């Protein structure tokens, strides 16, 4: 039984490099206005998430949508266990595989094949075990001879193939993906979707952040709409998409 459960989760963190006035101005002028506060020592504090509560259970494909700076990435990082909530409570069960950024976790000087092993190791899979699965991963990526070249030489789309294939070689119980997945081409996306659907059938959880309403409509059945760190809507995907369209047209309620 895997689940992700958030209760009144807030994440607030100081931005230390915001010492320069110009950056403050940039931040204040952006759409995240209202999330910035000053603490006693005059540091700029970003409240990236405010009292978000929801629960994701077995077999759910959960979408995270919102404008830039709405808190999507922060929410994914909380779900992946990278950020600890500063308020509220987060509990989860299940082996998490997170694909938050394609570049990170890939060592650009190592070859594709070495990166497959490396990615597996970070997920807690021993190199011996990973070597057995490497052939299947290599086949899924369709990268052929490129697998023996340094990842430095790869295009963004090729990196997506490599990272996705390696991270999903063992069906994850919880798969968390940020929007970079859309860097893959249509044929790869179709292949990736089939793979994810296979996991979700065996009662896994998918959490996906994306700007592509089309992609989200295809992949997900439930979702959350974030705006300035607040949860505007949580529910079935058509409702969330409708709320997002409304937000784009009318602005925040």
């Amino acid at each position, binding site marked *: 039984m895997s689940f992700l459960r958030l209760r009144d989760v807030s994440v607030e*963190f*100081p931005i*230390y490099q915001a010492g320069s006035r110009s950056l403050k101005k940039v931040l204040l002028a952006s759409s995240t206005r209202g999330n910035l506060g000053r603490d006693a020592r005059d540091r700029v504090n970003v409240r990236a998430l405010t009292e978000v509560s929801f629960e994701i259970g077995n077999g759910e494909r959960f979408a995270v949508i919102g404008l830039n700076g709405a808190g999507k990435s922060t929410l994914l*990082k909380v779900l*992946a*266990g*990278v*950020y*600890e*909530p*500063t*308020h*509220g*409570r*987060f*509990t*989860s*069960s*299940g*082996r*998490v595989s*997170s*694909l*938050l*950024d394609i*570049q*990170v*976790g890939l*060592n650009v*000087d*190592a070859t594709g094949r*070495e990166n497959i092993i*490396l990615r597996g*190791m*970070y*997920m*807690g*899979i*021993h*190199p011996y*075990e990973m070597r057995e699965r490497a052939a299947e991963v290599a086949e899924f990526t369709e990268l052929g001879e490129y697998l023996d070249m340094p990842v430095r030489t790869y295009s963004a789309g090729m990196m997506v193939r490599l990272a996705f294939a390696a991270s999903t070689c063992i069906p994850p119980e919880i798969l968390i993906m940020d929007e970079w997945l859309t860097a893959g081409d249509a044929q790869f996306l179709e292949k990736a979707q089939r793979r994810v659907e296979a996991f979700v059938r065996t009662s896994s959880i998918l959490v996906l952040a994306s700007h592509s309403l089309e992609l989200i409509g295809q992949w997900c059945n439930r979702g959350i709409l974030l705006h300035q760190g607040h949860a505007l809507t949580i529910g079935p995907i058509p409702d969330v998409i409708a709320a997002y369209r409304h937000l784009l047209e009318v602005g925040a309620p």
Partner: protein
Amino acid sequence: MTSSETAVDLRVDEIAAPWQRPSRTRSAVLDLLEGLYQSWLWTTLAHQDLKLRYRGSILGPFWQTITTAVMIGAMGFIYAKLFHTPLQNYLPLLAAGLVFWQFTSGMVTDGCGTFYSVQGIIQQVRLPFSLHAYRLVYRNLLILMHNFFIVPIVLFIFPQSIVWPRLLELGPGLALILLNGIWVSILLGMVSARFRDVPPIVASIVQVVFFITPIFWPANGLGAHRWLAEVNPIYAGIDVLRAPLLGQPTEPYSWLILTTVTVIGCAATFAFFARFRTRIAFWV
């Protein structure tokens, strides 16, 4: 499911807001232990670090060994004359001194990047933070093992009156240095992730320390001011490893100073680590 995967599950379950968390101390202890437990991961990563660093070069990590050997050779002849010391006595002192200095100072300078240099991993995967420190210390131990080749060669050419049973002191000496490496890399790694001015400051301090510590010059040269060397903890660390190898008596306070520094350093770093551990992900 492998055992390490279950460990991950346990940890994720424990994420909660500060007042609901079991305790910061307990989480910090768990972090340190889980890091140790995943030794297969940090040892493999450290080996890979070296492999990638020297990819495409024929000599690989032995480049470092050759660089050190050339430095010892070149410095040895000049400074032996300068200090009016016979080469027979000076070269072994210099060789062992430089090899152990590179090991300790390597951990300090590397230690600034313990967390910053792996920000990509920290931002993506939940791993014990201590794991990155173990990886760093182990990587430097591997480099030491390559460099150390020089010492027996020099000792073969210029034999010293080694008291063989005293070589057993190398075990506890190395263990203490490694413990210091762990706290230094955690503490400096955290402070450097938060304040980006720290790495250049540390780099300058390390350079100064190299010249004021009896590494390439004999402590006896200080004469009446010998205590200046005896109280230097870096010297203490090098002394406990070097003296037995050269068959010389260890300085009277070296063990005491090294142990004190280890205990205080570990305790202070643990307190700091327990307090700010969860901030590391935001800092990097």
